[in-house]
């Protein structure tokens, strides 16, 4: 995962409904993540795309998150965040209002610890008093303005220890390097191969490579599909034996990738070796020789013997 995705993935993890070793201060206080990449209407006809929108049903508070991949604050963007209308957020996220309080919202920025000072300065220059969630290697802390939710403020009263990098939910965007697209597209081609697919369109390939593709607006989706197409071309160049790239035509307005030499057509040993060969062409991580395992077989009971026969077959397969 690129370092610039750590802030957004960190905030997502802090809302997670599933327990991991990552802390969940927003979830623990009662906030739920309602949207990613939500275009938030501000003013009469302006928008600001919020990276994340959280909502706490018990007091009708929204949090708009801007996860900074770098160290610069776009002052105009920050100013627009200040104009976000909580009533519009209710309509856009379609949350149910059950508490008596009027809906409110607060913008919260997030960044890497190494960018903390510059982001704080940028927010100051933009005259925006937002809390900043600063993600370090070993802890996360809140700096800048106070949260307007006392429970959340208490949660961030002192730095919260982190166990390591956050789960990688968002791993590529249109600014990602070619190699980052290769890392998600090549495995998808292998997955298609293992399903005995004869060919796959770049559109399907993109949907299966980028599981969150459908949350982006059309223009961004098209751009991402183009990047996936380019990665598919590189895959075909790296492994001509298994992948053939066919560009779009007059009658087929999208490129496809033909798959051949399927490992699934081979016996188990040949199949494993073929997959390992594809892996070595695509990368990267060296694979060692496979040590044989010899295990003692035992038993003299009727029922045991029957089970052992099955397990013996399983062990042969593993070797």
């Amino acid at each position, binding site marked *: 995962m690129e370092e610039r995705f750590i802030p957004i993935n960190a905030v997502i993890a802090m809302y997670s409904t*599933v327990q991991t*070793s990552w802390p969940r201060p927003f979830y623990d206080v009662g906030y739920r993540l309602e949207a990613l990449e*939500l275009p938030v209407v501000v003013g009469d006809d302006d928008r600001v795309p919020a990276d994340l929108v959280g909502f706490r049903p018990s007091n009708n508070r929204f949090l708009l998150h801007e996860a900074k991949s770098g160290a610069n604050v776009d002052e105009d963007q920050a100013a627009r965040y200040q104009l976000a209308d909580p009533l519009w957020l209710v309509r856009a996220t379609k949350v149910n209002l059950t508490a008596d309080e009027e809906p409110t919202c607060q913008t919260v920025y997030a960044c890497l610890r190494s960018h903390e000072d510059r982001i704080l300065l940028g927010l100051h220059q933009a005259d925006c008093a937002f809390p900043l969630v600063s993600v370090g290697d070993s802890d996360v802390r809140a700096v800048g303005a106070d949260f307007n939710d006392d429970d959340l403020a208490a949660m961030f009263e002192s730095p919260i220890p982190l166990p390591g990098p956050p789960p990688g939910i968002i791993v590529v965007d249109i600014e990602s390097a070619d190699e980052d697209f290769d890392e998600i597209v090549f495995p998808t081609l292998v997955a298609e191969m293992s399903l005995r697919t004869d060919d796959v369109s770049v559109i399907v390939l993109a949907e299966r490579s980028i599981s969150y593709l*459908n949350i982006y607006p059309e223009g961004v989706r098209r751009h991402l599909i183009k990047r996936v197409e380019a990665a598919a071309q590189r895959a075909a160049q790296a492994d001509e034996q298994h992948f053939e790239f066919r560009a779009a035509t007059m009658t087929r307005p999208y490129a496809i990738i033909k798959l051949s030499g399927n490992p699934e057509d081979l016996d188990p040993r040949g199949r494993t070796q073929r997959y390992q060969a594809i892996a070595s062409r*695509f*990368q990267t991580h060296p694979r060692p020789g496979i040590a044989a395992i010899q295990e003692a077989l035992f038993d003299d009971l009727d029922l045991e013997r*029957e089970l052992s026969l099955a397990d013996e*077959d*399983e062990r042969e397969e593993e070797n």
Partner: protein
Amino acid sequence: MNRKQLESQFRSPDTSPWKTFVLETHADGDDAAFLADVFGSGASRETDDRSLHQLFSSDLSITVDHLDPRFWSFHTRSSTAATYAFLKSAVARRRDLDFVWLPSAHLRRVQRDTPPNWIKTNFTGRRVLPADEVQELSVMVRGRASQSLLDLISRQRDHAHAISLSQLEVAVADPDLGYVVEAVNRTALFVAKGESFTLHELVVQQVVSRYRRLVEAAESLALGFEPVGDEGGGRILGGPIELRFSRALPDLEPFLDDLLSSREPFRLWGMVDNASDDYAEIEGVDLHVGQRIRIEVSREMLRVHLRAGGCGNTIARLVANLQHHVDGGIRAVDDRMNWELSVASVVAA
């Protein structure tokens, strides 16, 4: 063939014990067509009961009970090895058919109140663990006190990782249903003898019910994205499932090599990114089912991103095989997952 005849066959004396294999299936409603597609139209026959089919192949005669739409029982008195090979071949060919992969706690809980007659453990971590550790441990303990001996080893911090149940036998008596002896292995093969087919089926059903809850718990946590409008924006559903090792792995490198070797038991293919001595990210493929999967690994944990629509059996299989080859004490961080993985009463014990 019908269920009465099945019961009669179970009770009749035979030189070969009764076997029930359980497979996880995705037949999508048309069970007969699915069986014909998997095993060949000539191999499958209808019976008096629409939820029972018979399969024939060379020397094999198998009765398939597909009353449970997802977990099918394959009953036979034919050779265990030949039946296993026959079913394994079908599982290998298909992406909609898999074995059931019982975690140790599920196996241990086959019959809650009755101590097992014997237990076998089988841990084979030689590819992953260094030579100065317990790399392999196969133990057979006979007697009703078997579990207490294994518990003794499990409490040894340096050796707990090497306890992974692979088989056990339990005698089951029920005041209403009678008596059976069941030997069970970790891929849900039940070898049975006794007087009550109904009791045998009950034992199988209870094991499958616990396993189903585990698989469905994993599926309920699967990671998905749902668009909220044409202009962009979406909701996130679920999250990654994190598994914690009972102690830090001594070395990540051999673990990754084994995990991503594309061969049994894990059958994972993957590209490694951001690898260091302590952490790695993997964009991979579960070759058992052809599903994309993302895994993040450190020496302390393994985080699996099961995608929405993915099969929870992927998680169960991974956990069972990690217990067998890496760490018998692995657990899930999420409470519900851990509850279903450990089976509540075992956790309490």
